[in-house]
C-alpha cells in the first residue's frame, strides 16, 4: 500500500507544487491530499493562488478571429455527435443495467459486515503497517455516515462515506491479471464513468483501502475494472459494482 503524504510533507513542497515544479505523480498526491485533508494548509493554498496570477504578468495576446470560430465549430460538432448518445442514455436507465448486483444494504447491517471483514483481515494481514492502517479503518468505519456493499467476481468490499472523504475498503480481493491494476469508477446517472482512483495492492491476505478522488455527489453507482495502467475510460467489464442509490 502506498504510504500517504502527511500534512507536513505537503507543506514542505508547497512552493514547488504551486508553480508546477514537481513530478506528476507527486503533484497528484498533493492535489488529492489538499482535496481531502481537513487541515487548512493556508500557506499552500495562498501560494497556489499567487502562482495562478502569474499569467497576468505577461503581455496581452490577441487571439486571431478564426480561433473563436474554430473552437465553436468543434464544440458544435461534439454536441451533434453526442446527441444520439443522450437518446440512448435516457432510453436505458442505469438501474436496469445494474439489476444483478446487490442494492444498497441497510447501514447497520453493512457496518457490521465491514467490522467483521476487518476482524477477519486481522488474521489475514501480517504486516505491521497494514495492522496500523486497519486500526485507522476501524475508526473510519465507526464514524461512517453511509456504507454501500460492493460485490462481484473479484470479491467484495464496501464504500464508506466518512467526514474525511469516501473510502473503498476490501479484504482479500482476488488479484488482478498480471500487469493489471484495479481502477475505480463512479458512474453518474447517465452511466458515464468518472475515474476516482486505483487499487494496486489487491490479493490474498491484503486489506485494500483507497480514498476516492471525489465525493459521491451525483453518482449512481460505483464500479471496479481491471486495466493495464490507469485509463480515462474503462476498457473491460467491471469485476466489482455497487449501487449508490
Amino acid at each position, binding site marked *: 500500500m502506498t504510504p500517504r503524504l502527511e500534512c507536513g510533507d505537503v507543506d514542505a513542497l508547497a512552493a514547488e507544487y504551486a508553480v508546477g515544479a514537481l513530478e506528476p505523480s507527486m503533484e497528484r498526491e498533493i492535489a488529492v491530499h489538499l482535496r481531502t485533508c481537513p487541515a487548512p494548509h493556508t500557506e499552500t*493554498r495562498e501560494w497556489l493562488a499567487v502562482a495562478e496570477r502569474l499569467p497576468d504578468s*505577461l503581455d496581452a495576446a490577441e487571439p486571431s478571429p478564426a480561433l473563436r470560430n474554430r473552437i465553436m465549430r468543434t464544440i458544435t460538432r461534439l454536441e451533434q455527435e453526442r446527441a444520439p448518445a443522450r437518446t440512448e442514455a435516457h432510453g436505458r436507465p442505469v438501474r436496469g443495467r445494474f439489476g444483478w448486483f446487490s442494492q444498497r444494504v441497510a447501514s447497520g447491517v453493512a457496518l457490521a459486515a465491514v467490522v467483521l471483514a476487518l476482524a477477519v483481515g486481522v488474521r489475514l494481514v501480517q504486516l505491521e503497517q497494514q495492522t496500523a492502517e486497519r486500526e485507522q479503518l476501524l475508526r473510519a468505519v465507526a464514524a461512517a455516515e453511509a456504507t454501500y456493499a460492493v460485490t462481484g467476481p473479484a470479491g467484495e468490499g464496501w464504500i464508506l462515506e466518512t467526514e474525511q472523504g469516501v473510502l473503498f475498503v476490501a479484504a482479500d480481493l482476488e488479484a488482478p491479471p498480471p500487469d493489471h491494476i484495479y481502477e475505480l469508477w463512479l458512474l453518474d446517472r447517465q452511466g458515464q464513468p468518472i475515474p476516482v482512483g486505483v487499487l494496486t495492492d489487491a490479493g490474498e491476505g491484503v486489506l485494500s483501502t483507497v480514498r476516492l478522488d471525489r465525493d459521491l455527489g451525483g453518482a449512481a453507482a460505483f464500479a471496479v475494472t481491471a486495466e493495464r495502467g490507469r485509463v480515462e475510460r474503462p476498457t473491460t467489464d467491471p469485476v466489482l459494482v455497487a449501487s449508490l442509490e
Partner: protein
Amino acid sequence: MFRSAASFTFRPALPLPTSRPPAVRDSQPGAPGMLPSDADLVQRIKAGDTNALGEVYDRYASLALATARRVLGDPAAAEDVVHDAFVGMWRRMSQFDADRGSLRSWLLTMVRNRAIDRIRARRPQLDLDQADELALLRSEAATTADEAMKRIATGDVRAAVDRLPSEQRRAVELAYFEGYTYREIASITGVPEGTASGRLRLALSKLRGALVGSEAAPEYVARLEQSGGHR
C-alpha cells in the same frame, strides 16, 4: 473471470451532460447590464449552452493565449493549444464543481499543461487525461485565497514579478512557464536542489506579500531570506 460480469457493461465512451442543474456558488442572475458570473456560465455549459462557452472564451482567451505563447513562443501552436484546452474544458465540464473550483485556474492549468507537453520532448509526455483531472483538483485548492487575489490588478501582478530578484524570478519562470521540476531547475541554474526550492519559496512569499500584503509577511520573508529559502 474478468469477463464473467458480461451482463454489466459500460456505455459507449461519450460525454453527456448532467441531468440535473449543478449547485453553483452564485447562481443568482447578475444585475441588468452586469456580466454573468463564472458559476452562471458553468451552469449554462453543463446544460449544453454553447454560447456560454463563447462567453468564457471572450473572458479568458487572451490570458490563455498569452500563457500558451509564453511557453511555446509560436503563435500558431499557441492557438492550437488554446483550442484544445477549451474543447477539453467543454468535454469535462460535467466534472467541474463551481462551488469548489476556479474556472480561470482550471482553464489556465489545462493550457499550461498542453503547452508544456508540446515542448517537453526530453521527458515522457504527459497523459493529458490525467493532467486534466489533476487540473480540476488544483483548481479547487486555491479558491479560498483566490478571493483576495482576484481583486489584484493585472499591472500590480506584473510589477510584483518584475521586482523579484532575478534568480528568484528565473526559478519561477522555469517552473511555471517552461515546465521544469525544481530538480531540473537546480541543474539548469547550477545550484543545489534545496537552493532551487528556496528560491521558489522566497519568490512566492514576496509575491504574496506584495500582492495581498500581510503584517506577518515581511518578517516571514526576512526569515526565509536568512535561511536561503529553507524553512
